[in-house]
């Protein structure tokens, strides 16, 4: 009764946006779609929200087929596009009433559902939507997407361009909505948000790399990750890229994350190599893998397979 996709593919002229995508989102689940810009997240949303027809495959939302039951789907899903797309020249209240009306409902009818979010923007209800701050706009857009009590909520990069505090607040709101039996599909390019989802799908180049709970994805990480730091970060990166034991190396915060091809590899070997290359202030320590590490590894394997 959540969302299910079977072998969905979609191409735009020469670009393949989605390649044979299949997965299921359980009812009441908070499911994350994690991937960089251009991975195909928005295309997938547009297929599921009946705005775009897939070339191949079938998909259903809340038990209804996206092609044959599109009318029913439009009644029971909420969609919050990545770009703020409410009327700038209407006030907060007018926007809400407008969307309530076209869904044949009223603000009062489903007030319970949005109350918690709406009270935060209520003081500005006579302000035009275009004059709200980024975080406020986000809340208003969420209210508008929820106004008709949807069974499934699609949120396309809801936190892009929002400050860290508002992002945190926003995810807390989603967690609370989940308790009201709303299935949610959220896409994001922020890897740290992945751990807040029940399950995530890592997506790149229109292909799903991995689907699991964030915890399991991290556990499955096959290699030891080392935090590496030295005085000349750029030269360090270049040298490690040339190092024959390197499986992957990429910047991660103030460190470089390094993994080796060799399972028996030790940090001593690494330090030895770096000293040989005349690096100074060398720091090497084991790091706890994150979703981002998994993504980087999987995406590297994916592109190697592709070539």
């Amino acid at each position: 009764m959540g969302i299910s996709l079977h072998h969905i593919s979609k191409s735009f002229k020469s670009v393949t946006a989605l390649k044979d995508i299949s997965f299921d989102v359980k009812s009441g689940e908070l499911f994350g779609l994690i991937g960089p810009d251009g991975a195909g997240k928005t295309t997938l949303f547009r297929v599921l929200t009946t705005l775009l027809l897939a070339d191949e495959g079938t998909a259903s939302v809340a038990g209804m087929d996206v092609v044959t039951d599109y009318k029913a789907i439009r009644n029971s899903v909420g969609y919050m596009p990545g770009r703020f797309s409410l009327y700038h020249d209407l006030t907060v209240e007018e926007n809400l009433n407008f969307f309530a009306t076209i869904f044949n409902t009223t603000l009062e009818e489903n007030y319970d559902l949005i109350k918690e979010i709406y009270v935060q923007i209520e003081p500005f209800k006579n302000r035009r939507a275009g004059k709200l701050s980024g975080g406020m706009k986000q809340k208003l857009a969420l209210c508008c997407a929820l106004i008709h009590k949807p069974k499934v909520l699609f949120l396309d990069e809801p936190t892009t361009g929002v400050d860290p505090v508002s992002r945190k607040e926003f995810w807390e709101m989603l967690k609370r909505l989940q308790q009201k039996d709303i299935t949610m599909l959220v896409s994001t390019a922020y890897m740290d948000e992945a751990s807040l989802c029940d399950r995530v799908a890592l997506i790149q180049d229109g292909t799903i790399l991995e689907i699991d709970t964030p915890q399991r994805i991290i556990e499955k990480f096959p290699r030891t990750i080392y935090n590496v730091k030295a005085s000349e970060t750029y030269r360090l990166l270049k040298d490690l890229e040339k190092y024959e034991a390197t499986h992957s190396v990429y910047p991660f915060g103030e460190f470089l994350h390094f993994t080796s091809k060799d399972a028996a590899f030790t940090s001593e070997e690494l330090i030895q190599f770096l000293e040989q290359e005349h690096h100074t202030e060398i720091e090497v320590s084991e790091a706890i893998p994150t979703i981002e590490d998994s993504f980087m590894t999987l995406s590297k394997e994916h592109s190697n397979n592709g070539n």
Partner: protein
Amino acid sequence: MRTIRFLLVKEFKQIFRNKAMLLIIFVLPLIQLLILSNAASYEVKNSKFAIVDLDHSSYSRALIQKFEASSQFDFMGLFSSEKIAKEQMQQGKIDVVLYIPVHFERSFQKEKKGSLLTTINAINGSAAAVENMYVNAILKDFNKTIQVDFMGAEASLQPKQLHIDTLFWFNPELNYKTFMVPGILVLLVTMVALFLAGMNIVREKELGTLEQINVTPIKKHQFIIGKLLPFWIIGMFELAVGLVIARLIFDVPMVGNFGLLFLFASVYLLVILGIGMFISNFTDTQQQAMFLSWFFAVIFILMSGLFTPIESMPAWAQVLTEANPVKYFVEVVRMVMLKGASLLDIMPQLIKLSIYALLINTLAVWSYKKVN
């Protein structure tokens, strides 16, 4: 119904909140009407006129006096040679030159005929034709005078000439404003409807709100009616204001029935709004919509018979004008206001336009897709 009403309320709220939009809808058309109606004139005035007199006779002096006294021409002076006159015309300092050849008077008296030459700057062909008419009128008048003054008795022996009196119907004083104002009114209604409706839908595309709307259960027809009706209302309102101005300020007669005019306008606006919507379906930005609308607007207006008569267009162009809605409205507005045409008189145009409205709106609705 509730949805459509709400869409209308929303649309009007947005229109009235947009100060630039208010200006475009209410102020600019009025300024255009006032300016264009006074400026778009076919009368040719202040043509710069010069004479090259090589005869220096009493006849030539009399002729020069005639031209000097004329109110249609600004007399720029006498030039002593053809060469100077040519140079002056080349420099754009004069528009019309009359050459009086040597022995003009003598040949007139001896051979009872004389020849003159006029050179007219014909870059603007229609102005040149009018100037030619003025010159001929003055010469004709001069001809009469010399027949009486100089030939006296002989003139009375000339056979009586055919005298023609002309009555101008429907616009007895040939007042160009009476002719132009109704046409310009059509232009204003067209511009407001075509541009605003098309741009409005594309704007929602640009803002991304259209996508949000498309995910809602709103029906295609509800959305389209909600989008076009406000501009239909504004178009009708614009026509009403324009008519009041035409009556009060320009004193254009209203022989026919106002109701008939509004009936025709109501169908006409459907056509224009349909075209606007059709354009918006095939464009993604307001800029594209604007250029495409301009493309059609310019063709429609210049081929509408508003400025140049359709009868004088080449045959293929006349066929093309059949597809020009502006042409029908310009015709009907003039017919109703000046001739007092009845419903039966405008029936052919009304039927054609109704079919047009049906076709273009079907196309527009068909090409508007919620899913792609």
